[in-house]
């Protein structure tokens, strides 16, 4: 209620006006007839503790953003490239090593095959990128392989793609942080003992940056990505010029070089090298998952960014392999002496550029996990909207980030680090298995998509995607076979478990929706059920009277129940009740075993059993009076039995539990305001109406 205002007099005689209160305006804004929009103040915490927590949250994560600010948070192509591409582009730093490590098993001469293997991988990258470019345009709501498989192959295949991707995103975070720490460990051996803890700290830091929102995390992580891209292109370009001008000289063999085992160059060996180098493709799908994060036109911008990413990845990867081949670089077991490192040293020498290249490579390897932090929560949100993940995953936090997905990804990745003790060699076999499942499914899905759509060029498009599906399928089989015994079996076991979990969640949501479903055609009839109110009391006091008043507003069938283990006190309560509230029957339940909640529930059961079978069961309102103290620590002294009673009654059929709070401030004011009456003349007042 607002205080009445007096009229204001105008400049001319008789002109009067009234300024009218706008009580809603601090918290809400009318947006149309019957529609109100909550302002920031409506969502602000009301307690001092809540406000302090909000200030800390605002300092750490930034000020909350409104839904309308979503468009401002969208990513430009410049910012999206480092956010969604750090995983893919970072793989160019080690993909050539993976090829050489396999080929060298045959002979040093066999290393010349590396350029052909790299070319084949680049071809596969082109096909996959081409396919995902079409996915961005055909499915602009995001979801990538999951949506393509769901729409074209069926929901089960969609779930396979989703589960495979989710596992891979978790592994990307665990592997990238472990491998960054391993690289750091070569420079600072002291950190080896606390790798797990440091890894966890690093993941928490990336989590915090992502919880600040996609644009802000993009600003944080853009510099290292662009620095790596720039330096990697420079080393490749400079190296090619050296090769063309004939100034590229073969390097001396580095330490810890992997020795040849004299194997014959077979198709299988080349396939193995192909599968090893295919890690370059991990992360390519991330952009297709996050199309809605782009500025409009979303699909076009995402598709163009994807092409730019594939182009950069392809050029750096092929370029490094080509230059490395001409400089005679070798695969080694030594940390830090990667192909990139060797080529960098050969081209730049021991200059600042070489050290910058190494630092940026370490940083981008580390930031590869950031792609997962953007792709995983988006995929989880789409799955949640489809009912396959808990709905919390679809909620966006204060900064419009999918906070649940981000936090869960971080928690699971930290768990993986602890389980595998941040050991890169133990984690890597689990990595890049799932991504080829989803590549295969998305390519197959696109074949069906083209065949269904029959738009211009559908025949050659489906042919390309079909070829891509076979290629990525083969890579999956090779990768899974190669890595199976080393740990890939865990991934292949975990993917079906994840699918089962998603199906279980979906089943639960479908079942609950069916139970809650209402007929759409007819209006809901008025209820004709009997209501009864039961008020459990601990003594006769103002809180109980207030609860009785609430009960009176619901029904006339009211009874109070007093459970006691003290007969003397029971008599006192009965006498006082008869004086104070003679119109409401009091049921006294002696409890010789001193239990409070169980006899009360038993009493309700007895009431239910005595209800005539031919009549519909009544709705029982259990109205619990609660004294609410001023501060949180005082509140621990009260209402413990009420809490237990509420918890026990939760889910009881035909029962509604109502807590009627009686605040300490109300009590003080009431006692001060009322005149003192003789005992037994307590007057019931309608406090609920005052509120």
């Amino acid at each position, binding site marked *: 209620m607002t205080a009445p205002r007096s009229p204001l007099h*105008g400049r*001319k005689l008789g002109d*009067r*006006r*009234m300024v*009218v209160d*706008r009580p809603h305006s601090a918290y809400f804004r009318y947006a149309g*007839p019957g529609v109100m929009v909550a302002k920031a103040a409506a969502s602000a915490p009301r307690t001092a503790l809540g406000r302090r927590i909000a200030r800390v949250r605002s300092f750490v994560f930034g000020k909350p953003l409104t839904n309308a600010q979503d468009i401002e948070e969208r990513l430009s192509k410049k910012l999206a490239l480092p956010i969604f591409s750090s995983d893919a582009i970072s793989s160019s730093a080690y993909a050539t090593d993976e090829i050489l490590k396999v080929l060298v098993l045959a002979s040093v001469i066999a290393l010349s095959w590396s350029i052909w293997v790299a070319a084949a991988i680049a071809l596969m990258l082109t096909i996959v990128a081409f396919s995902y470019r079409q996915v961005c345009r055909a499915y602009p709501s995001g979801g990538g392989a999951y949506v393509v498989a769901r729409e074209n192959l069926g929901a089960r295949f969609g779930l396979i793609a989703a589960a495979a991707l989710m596992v891979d995103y978790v592994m990307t975070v665990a592997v990238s942080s472990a491998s960054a720490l391993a690289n750091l460990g070569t420079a600072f051996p002291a950190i080896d003992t606390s790798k797990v803890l440091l890894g966890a700290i690093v993941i928490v830091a990336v989590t915090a940056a992502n919880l600040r929102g996609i644009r802000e995390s993009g600003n944080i992580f853009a510099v290292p990505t662009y620095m790596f891209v720039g330096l990697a292109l420079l080393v490749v370009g400079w190296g090619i010029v050296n090769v063309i001008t004939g100034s590229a000289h073969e390097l001396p063999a580095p330490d810890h070089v992997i020795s040849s085992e004299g194997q014959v160059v077979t198709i299988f060996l080349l396939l193995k090298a192909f599968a090893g180098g295919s890690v370059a493709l991990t992360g390519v799908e991330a952009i297709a998952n996050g199309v809605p994060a782009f500025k409009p036109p979303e699909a076009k911008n995402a598709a163009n960014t994807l092409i730019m990413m594939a182009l950069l990845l392809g050029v750096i990867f092929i370029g490094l392999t080509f230059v490395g081949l001409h400089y005679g670089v070798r695969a080694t077991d030594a940390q830090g002496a990667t192909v990139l490192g060797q080529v960098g040293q050969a081209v730049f020498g021991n200059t600042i550029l070489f050290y910058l290249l190494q630092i940026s490579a370490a940083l981008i390897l580390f930031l590869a996990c950031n792609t997962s932090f953007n792709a995983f929560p988006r995929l989880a949100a789409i799955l949640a909207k489809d009912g396959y993940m808990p709905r919390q995953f679809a909620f966006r936090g204060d900064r419009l980030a999918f906070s649940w997905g981000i936090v869960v990804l971080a928690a699971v990745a930290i768990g993986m680090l602890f389980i595998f003790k941040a050991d890169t060699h133990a984690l890597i076999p689990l990595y890049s298995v799932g991504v080829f499942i989803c590549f295969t499914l998305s390519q197959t899905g696109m074949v069906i998509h083209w065949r269904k759509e029959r738009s211009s060029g559908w025949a050659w498009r489906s042919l390309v995607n079909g070829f891509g599906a076979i290629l990525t399928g083969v890579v999956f089989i090779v990768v899974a076979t190669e890595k199976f015994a080393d740990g890939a079996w865990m991934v292949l076991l975990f993917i079906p478990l994840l699918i089962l979990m998603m199906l279980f969640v979906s089943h639960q949501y479908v079942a609950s929706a069916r139970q809650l479903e209402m007929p759409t055609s007819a209006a809901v009839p008025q209820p004709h059920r009997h209501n009864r109110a039961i008020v459990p009391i601990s003594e006769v006091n103002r809180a109980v009277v207030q609860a009785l008043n609430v009960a009176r507003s619901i029904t006339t069938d009211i009874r109070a129940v007093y459970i006691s283990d003290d007969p003397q006190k029971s008599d006192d309560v009965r006498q006082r009740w008869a004086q104070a509230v003679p119109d409401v029957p009091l049921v006294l339940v002696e409890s010789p075993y001193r239990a409070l909640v169980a006899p009360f529930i038993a009493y309700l059961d007895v009431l239910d059993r005595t209800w005539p079978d031919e009549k519909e069961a009544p709705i029982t309102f259990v109205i619990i009076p609660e004294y609410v103290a001023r501060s949180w620590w005082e509140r621990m002294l009260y209402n413990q039995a009420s809490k237990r009673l509420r918890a026990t009654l939760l889910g009881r059929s035909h029962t509604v539990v109502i807590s009627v709070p009686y605040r300490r401030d109300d009590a003080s004011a009431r006692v001060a305001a009322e005149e003192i009456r003789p005992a037994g003349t307590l007057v019931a007042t309608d406090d609920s109406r005052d509120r």
Partner: protein
Amino acid sequence: MPEASNPAFRRAVIALSGGPSDAAIVRLALEVARPNRAELIAVHVVELDWTQPLDADVAERSEEAQQVLDAAEGIADQLHCKIESVLVQARDVGAAIVDEAAARRADLLILGLSYRTRFGGDFAIGRTVPYALQNAPCAVWVVRQPKGEEPQ
């Protein structure tokens, strides 16, 4: 040609009628006020006839009246600006607007004017604008809608 610049004002009252021109006036006022960091007060007057007392509970409960000012606040929020809103009940809109501008020591009063012709005849300016032009103690801007935007 003299150099065009925004005339400086410290505090302006914008009279909102709830009509289609409101949004354009608010935007214009916000854009002009921004460089000078001038204060803006949006005023909407609910006119009561003599059958009701002046303190009748009309405007406070009227979603429609509240919405006029809420829409102005919404536009200000979009442009990251602030606007104060005042809801007034009065017998005469023009007098209430002028009195409110005077009471708040505004140095500018902005009013919107829909291009309205009655029964296909002459252009009708109404009562409020002439009153404000004659009686306001401060400068008055009248922002007339283009001819083509006459409300149906």
